[in-house]
C-alpha cells in the first residue's frame, strides 16, 4: 500500500523551471549539427488552383542550393497521409477520408499548402531560391462559406467526392420531437463560431539526421505524439521502428495542432536527410504558421431548446455545419466533441444532434485547445440565457433547476463520445460550483445594487455566469517506467511529449509520494522514443490522468520490489519495514536500514544469482488504459464594462471555480486555467482568422491577428473543488483545456447584460468592437473581407472621346500607376508590366492583364484587372458607366479588389487607402490624357 499523499495536492515548485528560465532547455531549433542544411517551402498563394506546370531548374542552379523537390521527385514516397482518428462506431455515420499530401501534385487546396521544397546551405539562400521557381497555375473558384460549399454546383475541394460533404452524423437520445410538442417555450437561434489559430510561442520545427554507419535516423520534432510519429516514419521510410528515434524535446506550446501527425514537413525533412546524407532542419516561421499549421473553430449551429414553464429542459435540438478545412485527417474528433459537450452539466432528457462536416479551401482543422467543446458550451449556455429571459427567470436559477444531482453518477448520456466509448460522466457535483462562483463574483449584490447604480451614472457593466463540463483523460493508454538508480535517484520515463504542462513536476510528485523520496530527486523523461517505447501522446487533457496514473502504477510496483529486496537483505518480514526519505528501515530501529540506492545495487548483483521469478533492479513498467474518460467541470463568471460610444469592452473581473478531481499541483492547475482563460478571451474578443471569398487569409501576422496580451487579460480568481474520479486510484481528471472552453459563452452573456438597454443579442463568437458597433447601431454588418471602391469622376470631354480613350492601350497605360508598358493583345485584352511600390514596400514588377467585357459603347463596360508579382497577386473587377454631364462626361464605377499572397496576409490595413489612391491617380491621369487629346 502506498502511503497517504505528501506531495500530491501541494504547490510544489516546478522541477523543469531552472532549465527553462536559464535557457538550458533544448528546443528543436537549438539542434545544430555539422553540415546541417536548411529548408524553405514554396507554398500555394491560391486557396484553390490547378498546378499545370512547375519549373525548379533555376532554383536548382542557385549557388548554395543543394536540392529542390517537387511532388514528382518524391516517387513512391508521395502518398496521402494516414487517417489518424477513424470515426467512432455511430450508426448511420457517413465519413469520407481525404488526407493531406506531402507536396501538391495536381491542385492546391488551401493557401499555404506546400508545392516545392528547397534544401540549401542556409535558410536565407533557401528563401532566395523560392523566387527562382516558376509556376503555371490555373486559379479555381474557392470553397469558403460552409453553406455555399454544400449548395448545388459549388466547386469541389475533392473531385472524387460528389460534394464537399466530408461527414454526416446524427446522434439521438430520447424523443426530441415529443419534448418539443410538450414544451412551454421553444427557443430557436442560429449561432456562429469562427476560426482562430493556436499561436504557440514556438512554431513547428523538424530536424533529422541519418547516421549511415549506425543505420539510424534521429528526428527532433515539436510533435505532441513522438511515438506514433516514430512508428509512422519507420513504416514510410522502410525502417525498423528501432532504427528511428524521435525526440520531442522541450516544446513551446502544443495546444493541439502539434497532435496533428505527418504534416508534409514532418514527412519530408527526415526523407531529405536520408536522401542527402546530411542533417536537415526546418523551422516554421510565423508567416507559415498562419496557413500551414492546423486551425479550428468554424461552425454554424441552428439550435433549439424546449423548456417547461419552470425552466426545466425538456429537450435540445442542434443541427450544425463543421468546417473541416481542406483535408480531414483527424477524423471527427472536433464536431463530436461539440455535440457531446453541448449537454453540459444538465439533465437533458431528449437530444437530437446532427452535423455535416464540410470540406473548404482553408487550412486543415484539427483539435485546438477545447477542440469543439466551446461550440457546444456556447450554444447550450446561450440557449439557457435566452430561455431564462423568455421565462422571466434569473440566469443562475435556470441553471440550478437543470443540474444533474450529485447522486446521478455515473450518468449515461446515451450518445457516443470522440473516444468511441459511450458518453458517461464518471462523477460530478455541479450546483455548489455555481454557488461558489456567484459568491466570489458577488452576483446578487452586483445585479441588485452595483449594476443599477452604475447604469444611472451612465456606465454599462454586465455579469456573465456559465457552466461547462469537459470530457478529459481518454484512452487508449499511456505507460511509464520507474527506475531507482544506484545513486538513489529515481528516473521516470513516459511516452507522452511535453509542451509546458509541468509533467516533470506533476509526475515526480506522484512518484515521490509513492516511494517517499524528495520531489527534486525524481528525474522525469518525456518525449524520447528511445526512453519509452509505447504510448500515444499529449492531447485531450489526458497527460496527468493517463500518464500520471501509469506513473503511479509503476511507482507502486517499484515500491513492492523495494520491499521484496529489503525483506531479503534486512532479513525482516515486510510488515516490519518502513519506507521513508529514500531509505528502508526496520520499525523500532531507525538506524538499522538501507538506502534505495544500495538496494538497487543489491538488486542488480555482479555475482551470485537473480532468483527465478524475479527481475534485476528496482524498476517497473506499468500501463494505464481507461475504458472511458473522466469528466471535469466548472463555472466561469466575469464582469465587463462596455463603452457603447466606442464599442470597447474591458474585462474587470474573472472568476473560475474548477473541478478536475484530485489536484496534483494546484499551482500548475491554476497556470493552466489562467492560460486557458487568456486563450478563451482571445477567441471571444480578439482572435479571428478572416478569410475572403477567395480563401485568402487576411490577417496572417500578429500585426492584424490580435492575441490578447497581459494588459487585456485580468488575473483570474480561481477556486478549486475536488470531486474525485472513481476511474483511477488518485481520482484525477484533466484540466489542460478547461480554461478556454466556456469563455466565449461567459463573455457574450456579460456583454449582452452590460448592453441590456440597447437590446443587443449576441449569437456570434468571436466578437470585436467593430461587430459590437454594428450590433449597437443595428446596421447590417458589411462584408469586411473585400475592398469595395465606389465613386464617380467627371471627365472634361464628350462621352465618345472618353469611351475611345478608355480603349486605347497607350492611354490606359498612363492610368496604371507605375506602368512600364501596356499592349493590346486582342479585342478588349491588354497585357503589360507595371512597377508598384508604396511606403515601406519596395517597388516591384507586376505583370498586369486587363480584360474589358460586356462593352456597350459609349455607355458601360466591365473590366477585370489582374496583377501578379513577387509579393502576391491582385484581381479587381469593375463595372463602369458613362453618362453625359454638364461639364463633360461622368463616370460612375464600382470595383471590388481582392489580393493574394503576402500582401493579402499583411497588407490589409492599407489596402483600402492604396486602392483608393491608385484609382484617384489613374482617373486624374486619364483626364489629363483626355485634355491633351481634345
Amino acid at each position, binding site marked *: 500500500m502506498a502511503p497517504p499523499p505528501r506531495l500530491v495536492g501541494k504547490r510544489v515548485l516546478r522541477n523543469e523551471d531552472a532549465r527553462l528560465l536559464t535557457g538550458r532547455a533544448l528546443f528543436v531549433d537549438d539542434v545544430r549539427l555539422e553540415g546541417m542544411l536548411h529548408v524553405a517551402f514554396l507554398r500555394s498563394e491560391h486557396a484553390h488552383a490547378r498546378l499545370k506546370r512547375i519549373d525548379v531548374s533555376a532554383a536548382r542552379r542557385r549557388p548554395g542550393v543543394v536540392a529542390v523537390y517537387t511532388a514528382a521527385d518524391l516517387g513512391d514516397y508521395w502518398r496521402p497521409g494516414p487517417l489518424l482518428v477513424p470515426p467512432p462506431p455511430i450508426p448511420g455515420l457517413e465519413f469520407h477520408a481525404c488526407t493531406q499530401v506531402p507536396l501538391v501534385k495536381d491542385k492546391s487546396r488551401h493557401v499555404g499548402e506546400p508545392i516545392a521544397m528547397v534544401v540549401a546551405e542556409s*535558410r*536565407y539562400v533557401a*528563401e*532566395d531560391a523560392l523566387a527562382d521557381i516558376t509556376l503555371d497555375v490555373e486559379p479555381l473558384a474557392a470553397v469558403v462559406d460552409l453553406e455555399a460549399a454544400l449548395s448545388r454546383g459549388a466547386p469541389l475541394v475533392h473531385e472524387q467526392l460528389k460534394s464537399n460533404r466530408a461527414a454526416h452524423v446524427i446522434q439521438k437520445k430520447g424523443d426530441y420531437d415529443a419534448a418539443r410538442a410538450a414544451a412551454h417555450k421553444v427557443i430557436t437561434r442560429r449561432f456562429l463560431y469562427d476560426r482562430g489559430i493556436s499561436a504557440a510561442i514556438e512554431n513547428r520545427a523538424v530536424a533529422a539526421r541519418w547516421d549511415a554507419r549506425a543505420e539510424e535516423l534521429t528526428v527532433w520534432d515539436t510533435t505532441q505524439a513522438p511515438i506514433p510519429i516514430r512508428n509512422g516514419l519507420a513504416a514510410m521510410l522502410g525502417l525498423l521502428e528501432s532504427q528511428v528515434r524521435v525526440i520531442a524535446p522541450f516544446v513551446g506550446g502544443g495546444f493541439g495542432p502539434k497532435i496533428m501527425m505527418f504534416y508534409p514537413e514532418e514527412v519530408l525533412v527526415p526523407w531529405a536527410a536520408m536522401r542527402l546524407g546530411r542533417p536537415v532542419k526546418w523551422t516554421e*516561421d*510565423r*508567416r507559415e504558421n498562419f496557413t500551414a499549421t492546423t486551425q479550428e473553430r468554424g461552425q454554424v449551429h441552428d439550435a433549439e431548446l424546449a423548456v417547461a414553464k419552470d425552466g426545466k429542459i425538456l429537450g435540445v435540438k442542434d443541427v450544425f455545419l463543421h468546417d473541416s478545412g481542406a483535408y480531414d485527417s483527424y477524423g471527427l474528433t472536433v464536431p463530436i466533441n461539440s455535440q457531446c459537450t453541448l449537454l453540459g452539466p444538465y439533465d437533458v432528457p431528449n437530444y437530437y444532434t446532427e452535423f455535416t462536416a464540410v470540406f473548404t479551401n482553408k487550412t486543415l482543422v484539427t483539435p485546438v485547445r477545447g477542440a469543439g467543446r466551446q461550440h457546444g458550451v456556447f450554444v447550450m449556455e446561450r440557449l439557457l440565457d435566452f430561455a431564462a429571459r423568455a421565462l422571466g427567470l434569473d440566469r443562475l436559477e435556470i441553471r440550478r433547476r437543470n443540474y444533474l444531482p450529485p447522486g446521478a453518477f455515473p450518468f449515461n448520456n446515451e450518445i457516443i463520445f470522440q473516444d468511441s466509448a459511450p458518453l458517461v460522466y464518471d462523477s460530478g457535483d455541479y450546483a455548489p460550483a455555481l454557488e461558489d462562483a456567484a459568491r466570489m463574483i458577488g452576483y446578487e449584490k452586483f445585479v441588485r445594487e452595483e449594476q443599477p447604480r452604475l447604469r444611472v451614472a451612465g456606465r454599462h457593466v454586465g455579469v456573465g455566469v456559465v457552466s461547462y463540463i469537459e470530457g478529459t483523460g481518454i484512452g487508449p493508454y499511456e505507460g511509464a517506467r520507474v527506475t531507482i538508480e544506484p545513486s538513489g535517484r529515481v528516473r521516470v520515463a513516459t511516452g507522452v511529449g511535453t509542451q509546458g504542462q509541468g509533467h516533470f513536476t506533476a509526475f515526480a510528485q506522484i512518484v515521490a509520494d509513492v516511494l517517499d523520496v524528495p520531489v527534486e530527486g525524481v528525474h522525469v523523461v518525456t518525449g524520447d522514443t528511445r526512453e519509452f517505447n509505447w504510448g500515444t501522446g499529449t492531447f485531450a487533457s489526458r497527460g496527468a490522468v493517463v500518464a500520471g496514473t501509469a506513473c503511479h502504477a509503476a511507482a507502486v510496483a517499484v515500491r513492492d520490489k523495494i520491499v521484496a529486496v529489503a525483506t531479503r537483505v534486512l532479513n525482516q518480514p515486510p510488515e516490519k519495514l518502513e519506507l521513508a526519505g529514500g531509505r528502508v528501515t526496520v520499525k523500532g530501529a531507525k538506524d538499522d536500514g538501507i538506502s534505495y540506492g544500495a538496494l538497487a545495487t543489491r538488486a542488480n548483483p555482479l555475482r551470485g544469482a537473480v532468483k527465478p521469478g524475479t527481475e534485476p533492479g528496482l524498476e517497473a513498467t506499468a500501463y494505464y488504459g481507461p475504458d472511458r474518460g473522466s469528466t471535469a467541470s466548472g463555472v466561469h463568471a466575469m464582469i465587463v464594462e462596455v463603452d457603447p*460610444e*466606442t*464599442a*470597447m469592452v474591458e474585462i474587470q473581473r474573472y472568476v473560475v471555480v474548477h473541478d478536475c478531481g484530485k489536484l496534483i499541483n494546484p499551482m500548475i492547475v491554476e497556470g493552466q486555467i489562467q492560460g486557458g482563460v487568456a486563450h478563451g478571451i482571445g477567441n471571444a474578443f*480578439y482572435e479571428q482568422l*478572416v478569410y475572403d471569398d477567395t480563401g485568402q487569409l*487576411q*490577417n496572417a*501576422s500578429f*500585426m*492584424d491577428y*490580435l492575441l*490578447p*496580451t497581459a*494588459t*487585456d487579460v485580468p488575473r483570474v480568481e480561481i477556486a478549486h473543488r475536488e470531486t474525485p474520479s472513481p476511474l483511477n486510484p488518485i481520482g484525477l481528471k484533466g484540466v489542460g483545456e478547461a480554461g478556454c472552453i466556456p469563455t466565449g459563452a461567459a463573455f457574450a452573456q456579460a456583454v449582452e447584460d452590460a448592453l441590456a438597454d440597447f437590446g443587443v443579442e449576441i449569437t456570434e463568437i468571436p466578437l*470585436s*468592437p*467593430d461587430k459590437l*458597433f*454594428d450590433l449597437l*447601431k443595428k*446596421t447590417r454588418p*458589411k462584408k*469586411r*473581407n473585400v475592398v469595395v471602391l465606389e465613386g464617380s469622376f467627371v471627365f472634361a470631354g464628350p462621352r465618345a472621346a472618353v469611351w475611345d480613350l478608355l480603349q486605347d492601350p497607350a492611354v490606359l497605360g498612363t492610368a496604371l500607376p507605375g506602368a512600364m508598358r501596356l499592349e493590346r493583345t486582342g479585342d478588349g485584352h491588354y497585357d503589360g508590366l507595371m512597377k508598384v511600390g*508604396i*511606403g*515601406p*514596400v*519596395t517597388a*516591384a514588377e507586376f505583370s498586369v492583364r486587363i480584360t474589358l467585357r460586356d462593352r456597350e459603347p459609349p455607355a458601360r463596360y466591365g473590366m477585370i484587372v489582374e496583377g501578379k508579382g*513577387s*509579393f502576391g497577386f491582385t484581381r479587381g473587377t469593375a463595372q463602369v458607366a458613362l453618362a453625359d454631364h454638364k461639364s463633360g462626361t461622368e463616370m460612375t464605377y464600382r470595383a471590388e479588389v481582392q489580393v493574394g499572397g*503576402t*500582401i493579402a496576409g*499583411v*497588407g*490589409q*490595413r*492599407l*489596402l*483600402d*487607402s*492604396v486602392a*483608393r*489612391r491608385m484609382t484617384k491617380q489613374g482617373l486624374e491621369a486619364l483626364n489629363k490624357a483626355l485634355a491633351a487629346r481634345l
Partner: protein
Amino acid sequence: MKPAPFEYHRPGTVEEALAVLARHSGDAKPLAGGQSLIPAMNFRLARPAVLVDLNRIPALAGIRGSADGLRIGAMTRQRAVERDATVARDAPLVAEALPHIAHPQIRTRGTVGGSLAHADPAAELPAVMVALDATFDLVGPRGRRSIAATEFYTGLFTTALAPDELLVEIAIPRPAPRSGSAFVEVARRHGDYALAGVAAVVALDDAGRCRAARIALLSVGDGPVLARKAAQAITGESLTAEAIKGAADAAASQDIDPPGDIHASAAYRRQLVGVLVRRALQRACERARSH
C-alpha cells in the same frame, strides 16, 4: 521570413550617411530604430539594396530646450523622449501620446524621426507634430531646409523627404499661454495601431473663448489629417459642451473620408472620430483653463 540580400553601411556622421544615400540614389534606405523597416524586410516587402544604419551617428540624438521651444534629434529614442522632464513640461502632448506607441521594448529601439519619416497613417507622432505645428529639419546634398509638419506629409506613406535627404531634427514651438492639449486613441489592444486617434491643442483668449485650435487625426486617412472644419467650428466660440460636440461632429462628418479594414469599418471609424474629438477637446479645454 529572412530578408533578401542587401548591402549594409554604418556611417559615423550625417555627411557620410548622405554620401552613401547619394551614391545609391533611390536604392538605399536609412535604418533608424528598424521597428517597421526590419519586419517589412523580413516579409521581403521591403527590399532595399543598401541599408544606411543611422544608429552610430551621435549628433542625431538628443533633446534640447530653448526659449523658442523644444528641439529633438531625429534619432532620439521614443523611450528617452517619453521619460524626459523637459518634454513633459514643454510638450505635454508628446509625453501623453508616447505611451500609446506599441510597447516599451519597441519604444526603446524606435526613434522619433524614424516614426515621423515612415509616415504610417496610424502612427501617433505624425499627428502629434501636425497638432503642435512642429517643423522638421531636413538635410541633403542641396543643404538644410525646414518644413512644417503639415507640409511634410503628402500622402499615403509619402513625405516631402527626397530619397537622398535625411530628417535630422524636429522643432516644437513653446505652448501658447492659456493653452491645453490632449491625446486620445482607441486601439484594439494597448500598443496596437489605433482604430482612430486624436491629438488636440486648444488656446483660450482672456474671455475663455477658443482663440485657436489644432486638431490632428490618425488612422482615418492617408496620413495625419488636420481637422480644419472641426477647428473652425470652435475657434472664437465659448467652449461649451454643445460647441465641442459641434466640432466633433464636424470632424466626423466633414474632415475625414476614412478607410475601412478588417478591424474597423469606415462607419465605425467615423463614430470613433466624433467621440474621440469630443473627449480630446474636453480634456484639452480643462487643461487650458487650469493654466
